[in-house]
C-alpha cells in the first residue's frame, strides 16, 4: 500500500542572492513497512525533502508539486492542518539529539508530554486540530498537573509505566532513573534513543530520520541503527532515513533513492543498487567507497565538484562530471525511466 506519494516536488529558497533551487521535480513513492534511505551529498536536497514532507520548511520557501499522504495532499494544508499530522502520523528526528530535547525540562516531562498528546488525540478523534496541547495542560479537563513530574506532583502511574516500557524498548538501562534526568546529563546515544522513543510513542505511520547517527560514535551508531531496524517491525512504522553515508544505507535500508544537486538520480532496491548501479553518479559514489588499503585498491574519485545551486548547468546536472555524457545531456534534463524490478533512473543512457 502506498503511504506517501510525492509528485514533481519543486522547492526553492529565496535568499539574498536570488532563488536557490533546492529540489527540482522530485517524485517518489513510499510504501507501508518499508525502510527507505535517501542518499546524497551536501546540497542534494535530501534534508529539504524531509522537511517538505513534515511541513517544516522555512518561511522563505516557494513550493510546487504535491505530497500525498494516505490520499491527502499535504501541500494544500496550511500550518493548522499540518498540525494534525506532524508529530503524530508523521514524526521526525534530527541530527543533533542533545539540542532536540528541551534543556530545562526533565526527560520524563518531555516523554510524558508526548504520550499525553497521543492519548488525547485518540480521545478527541477527528476533532483534534491544535486543541490538543491545550488539553494536555488544562487541569480542568484531564486532571493532569501542568508540570507532569515536578516535585510532589507525580504523573499518572500508567503514563509512567508506559514511559518505562518505551525506554526499555529503546534499550535504555535503568529507565526509571533516566526519567528523572535532565538532557545535559545524557550522552548523545542515549538522547537519540530517547528521541526515537518519543517519536515512536506517537505510533506514527512514517518516521523521518535526518542524519540521526552522524553526530554519534561508531559503536553508538551501530546500536541506534540496529534499534531502528528492529523497531520498524515491532511498531509497524515506515522509516525514511536521510543520510550521506551509503555504507549506513546498505546496512539497514530496503530501498535507496540517490539524489544529486536537487534532482532525483536513481531509485532502487538496495541489493540491486550495489550489483547493478545505473546512474553514473551512483557508480561514481560506489567507486569512492573505501574497501581496501591504499596498496590493495585504487580509489577513483569523481572528477570535479558539486555545482553551485544558484548557477546550475542546463541539461543534466551531473553532465559536467559524467564520463558517459554526450551532447543531449548538456542541453536536456533527463526524466525518470523505470527498468525491471522497480529500478528507476534519470539518465539518457537508459532512454527518454
Amino acid at each position, binding site marked *: 500500500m502506498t503511504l506517501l506519494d510525492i509528485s514533481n516536488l519543486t522547492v526553492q529558497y529565496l535568499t539574498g542572492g536570488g532563488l536557490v533551487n533546492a529540489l527540482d521535480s522530485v517524485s517518489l513513492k513510499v510504501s507501508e513497512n518499508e525502510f527507505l534511505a535517501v542518499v546524497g551529498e551536501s546540497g542534494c536536497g535530501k534534508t529539504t525533502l524531509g522537511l517538505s514532507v513534515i511541513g517544516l520548511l522555512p518561511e522563505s520557501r516557494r513550493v510546487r508539486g504535491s505530497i500525498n499522504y494516505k490520499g491527502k495532499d499535504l501541500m494544500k494544508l496550511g500550518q493548522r492542518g499540518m498540525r494534525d499530522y506532524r508529530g503524530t502520523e508523521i514524526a521526525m528526528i534530527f541530527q543533533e539529539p542533545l539540542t532536540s530535547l528541551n534543556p530545562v525540562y526533565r526527560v520524563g516531562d518531555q516523554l510524558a508530554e508526548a504520550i499525553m498528546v497521543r492519548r488525547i488525540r485518540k480521545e478527541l478523534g477527528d476533532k483534534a486540530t491544535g486543541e490538543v496541547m491545550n488539553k494536555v495542560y488544562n487541569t480542568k479537563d484531564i486532571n493532569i498537573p501542568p508540570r507532569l513530574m515536578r516535585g510532589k506532583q507525580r504523573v499518572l502511574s500508567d503514563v509512567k509505566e508506559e514511559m518505562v516500557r518505551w525506554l526499555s524498548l529503546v534499550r535504555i538501562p535503568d529507565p526509571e532513573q533516566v526519567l528523572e534526568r535532565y538532557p545535559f546529563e545524557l550522552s548523545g546515544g542515549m538522547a537519540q534513543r530517547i528521541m526515537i522513543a518519543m517519536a515512536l510513542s506517537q505510533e506514527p505511520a512514517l518516521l523521518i530520520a535526518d542524519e540521526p547517527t552522524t553526530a554519534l560514535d561508531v559503536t553508538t551508531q551501530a546500536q541506534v541503527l540496529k534499534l531502528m531496524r528492529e523497531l520498524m517491525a515491532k511498531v509497524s512504522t515506515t522509516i525514511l532515513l536521510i543520510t550521506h553515508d551509503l555504507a549506513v544505507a*546498505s546496512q539497514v535500508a530496503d530501498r535507496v533513492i540517490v539524489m544529486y544537486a536537487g534532482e532525483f538520480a536513481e531509485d532502487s532496491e538496495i541489493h540491486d543498487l550495489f550489483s547493478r548501479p545505473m546512474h553514473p553518479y551512483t557508480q561514481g559514489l560506489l567507486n569512492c567507497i573505501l574497501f581496501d588499503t*591504499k596498496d590493495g585498491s585504487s580509489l577513483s574519485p569523481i572528477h570535479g565538484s558539486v555545482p553551485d545551486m544558484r548557477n546550475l548547468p542546463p541539461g543534466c546536472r551531473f553532465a559536467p562530471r559524467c564520463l558517459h555524457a554526450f551532447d543531449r545531456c548538456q542541453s536536456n534534463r533527463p526524466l525518470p525511466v523505470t527498468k525491471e524490478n522497480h529500478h528507476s533512473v534519470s539518465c539518457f543512457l537508459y532512454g527518454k
Partner: protein
Amino acid sequence: MANENLILNTVNLKKYFKIGRGMNPFSHKEQRYVRAVDGVSLSIQEGKTVGVVGESGCGKTTLAKTITLLISPTGGEIHFDGKRIDDGRVNRRDIYRNMQMVFQDPDSSLDPQMKIGDSIGEQLRGLMGYSDAEVKKTVRESLEGVGMPRDLADRLPRQLSGGQKQRAAIARAISPHPKLLILDEPTSALDASVQAQILTLLVDLQKKFNLSYMLITHNIAVAKYLSDTIAVMYSGNVVEYGPTLAVINRPRHPYTMALIRSAPVPDPWKRNILQAEIKGEVPSAINPPSGCRFNPRCPYAEDVCKTEKPQLEETSLSHLVACHFVEKTAAT
C-alpha cells in the same frame, strides 16, 4: 619493532588536565585530573602511516596536540627525528619545519580575514624566512601541488568549499616540506566524493615527498585505506597495535573487535551492524574504571581485569594487544 628510521617515537606519553577545585588554597578537596592520555607509546617509521583509531573521548586529539607541543606533556618522552623534544628547551621553529598538522574542521583551519595565499604563506614566512617574492612563488606552487588553481591564493576562505579549504590547509602544512604530517580527522567533515579526492591526494603526496603520516580518525575504512599500522585507542591508552590488515582482519582486543564489527560495511549482503552488540558507554576520563578501563563493557572480563591494568604485549609478529585474556579472543 625495528628501531631504525623512526621519525617519531613516544614513550609512555601522558597528558593530564587539572580540574579546578576552587580558589581556596587550603581546600581539602583532592586535586582531580582528566587523564586524557595515560601512557601512550607508539612509533612511526619514515615514509609510513600510523593510523590512531578511536571514538570520542579516547584521547586521540589530545595525543596529536601533545606530540606537536601545542599542549605540553605531563609525563613521558617524545622523540622526533632523533632528538628528544619534550623537555621544554627545544627550538619550536626547528621542530615545526619538519612537523606540521592538518586539522579536522576545514572551516576553522583558515583565518576568515586572511586571503588563502597569506594563510598558506604563514608557515613559510615564520619557519623558512622566505622573502615576499619567494613566498608568493612557493604558495602558488603549493596550490598546484594540491590540485587547485593558482589564483585561489587571492580568495577568502568563505569563497571556498569545504574540500577546497581542506586542500588549502594541506598546502599550508606541506609547504615547508616537513617530514611528518599529523592529520586529525582530515576528511570527517567532507562528503564521500570529496573525501575520496583528498585521500588520493594524501597518498600521492606521501609517495612524492616520502612523508610520514600520523592519521587520527574514528573511521575504520579511512584508517584501513591510508595506514600501514594501526593503533586503537580507548580511554587514554593504546589497547591494540599492529599492521593494518592484522588489526582489521584479526583483531584481538575485545574493544577493537566491537569497533570493527560496528563499522558499517558498504555491502548489503553483509549486514554486520545488525549483529553488533556492545553495551555501556565510554567511561569518564576523570574517574575511569580501575584495572582495565574496558572491563565494565567487556564480554570476557574476569576479576583480574578489575584490578590489574593490562600492558601491551606481543601476540604475533609486531601485533600487540593489552588484554589479560588474549587467548579467549583468538578463539573467536
